[in-house]
């Protein structure tokens, strides 16, 4: 027999899913997800038009660099901000959060339901984006070469690793921005703070590095970005102390759990102030 909280989580996900996928406030999330696709699509078109030779080594490095700079640090970061920050804050702005708070639902269950709805949207949008980007990057390669790369080379391993990193990024950034949205009314301040922290994280002491999403994501990328990308990008791409996937994945999940526990404590004490009486 299904327990009540599972039924409630399912009901919350059903209520939230439309908002997380189709909110007018979140339209720019789709634009963000499409942005890298345009770059990779453009790359293949130019290669095809100019008849340039296909070079797996070159394209794999380019993809790794762009994925680590653009996808992980910009698209995933701001996309999750757009989706997860609005889960509580957006309802405060719409003055509709009280309907949830007036239901026989534990606030922790509400948080889990909202988080899962956000995660479903984020994972669908950004994992699709990652897979399409990867496909577009190699779209100018002959079909037989691609089949061989997928079958005999590292194709599938790379693709699933990038998709996995994207999923983990949604899980980690989702929890961070869910907490930020529950803590702050203005999203700019926490977003800037997290962005700065994620950027300077490589230079932080080893213990502090573990309290970062990017630390785990970088360790899980299948290809280390090439060093010849310039000093600014090098600073962003460097991973001085990478961890093994067997540590990175549970570490990321543990980090997410901790953030969600703090968010649940905050939501439990949350009050409704729409400014009446």
């Amino acid at each position: 027999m299904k327990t009540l909280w599972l039924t409630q989580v399912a009901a919350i996900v059903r209520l939230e899913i439309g908002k997380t996928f189709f909110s007018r406030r979140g339209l720019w999330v789709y634009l963000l997800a499409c942005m890298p696709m345009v770059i990779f699509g453009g790359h293949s078109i130019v290669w095809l038009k100019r008849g340039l030779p296909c070079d797996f080594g070159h394209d794999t490095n380019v993809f790794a660099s762009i994925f680590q700079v653009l996808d992980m640090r910009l698209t995933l970061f701001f996309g999750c901000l757009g989706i997860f920050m609005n889960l509580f804050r957006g309802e405060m702005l719409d003055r509709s959060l009280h309907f949830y708070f007036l239901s026989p639902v534990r606030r922790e269950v509400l948080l889990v339901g909202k988080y899962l709805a956000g995660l479903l949207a984020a994972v669908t949008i950004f994992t699709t984006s990652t897979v399409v980007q990867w496909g577009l990057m190699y779209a100018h390669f002959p079909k037989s070469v691609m089949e061989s790369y997928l079958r005999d080379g590292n194709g599938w391993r790379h693709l699933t690793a990038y998709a996995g990193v994207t999923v983990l990024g949604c899980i980690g950034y989702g929890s961070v921005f869910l907490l930020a949205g529950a803590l702050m009314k203005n999203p700019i301040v926490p977003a800037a703070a997290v962005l700065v922290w994620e950027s300077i994280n490589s230079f932080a002491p080893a213990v502090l590095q573990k309290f970062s999403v990017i630390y785990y994501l970088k360790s899980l990328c299948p290809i280390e970005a090439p060093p010849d990308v310039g000093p600014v990008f090098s600073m962003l791409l460097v991973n001085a102390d990478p961890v093994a996937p067997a540590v990175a994945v549970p570490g990321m999940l543990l980090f997410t759990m901790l953030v969600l526990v703090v968010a649940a404590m905050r939501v439990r004490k949350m009050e409704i102030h729409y400014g009446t009486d």
Partner: protein
Amino acid sequence: MSEPHEIVFDNVSKFYGDVLGVNRVSLSIPPGITSLVGPNGSGKTTLMNLMTGLLRPTRGSIRVLGVAPDNPEELFRQLGYCTQFDSFPKGFTGYQFVYSFLRLYGSTHAEADQFAWRAIERVNLVEAAHRKIAGYSKGMRQRIKLAQATCHGPAVLVLDEPLNGLDPLVRAEVIALLRSLAEEGMHIIISSHILHEVDMISDQVILLSAGYVVAEGKIRGVRDEIQEQPMQILVRSNAPSALAAKVFEQDSVVEAKIHNDGRGLLIKTKDPDKFYRLLNRIALNGIAVESVIPADDDVNSLYEYLIGSEDKPR
């Protein structure tokens, strides 16, 4: 000591930073219809939000039928709250709004469907149930909120200005609905600005001013306690002048005024019991008394005596 059949506020205070919401409120609200009355900013909505856990008290504790408001999974099985907030989840029809929240209670599809239609029917919105709430009139939005607050059959119903925006016919229907729910033993807590309606429907009142409870209890009981204001009694008689001459025989009568229509006398007395005994003697001595009606044991008068006429509601 928390009484499991009552709503109990024990020395509750709520501050918004430095701003006072309510202060040192101690109340025991029994079943029936209880109205919260007071000017804007007096703390009516704050009390309701505290009772339902939308706000946390700065000090003190609250129990609703023995349940603390920070225990939503138990509290909202027995409480429904129709707030003053005129906002809804985007894109919902009236039916979806009621149905979706019933699913949060753990109802199956069939149960939620059945309860939703029953609640919608009770507020006469069946025909508009599949229309988007965004297109509803203010009165319809009030009614769908009422349907949502009552759909799960709560024992306590909290209604913040529930009659706002309703036309007279629907207003009468809602009042009748509330009366019937109260007769079934439900706790109904209402805040309203319309004093004559409060008067019509309330079993007891809580008068609030600037965050403090000024008076509470049955309207008649509260009136009896305001001894510095003489009680006003309208005595209907075809000989008001003769009646006036007789009533001044008693010290406690401080004023007697012939009614505008010339068929009655408005008496102000500091001792109504003594006055009623005198009136019996007068009637026995041949002055016909058609009726005796207390003229100021209503919410309107209580409000004026205890809070004053500033910011007085309608």
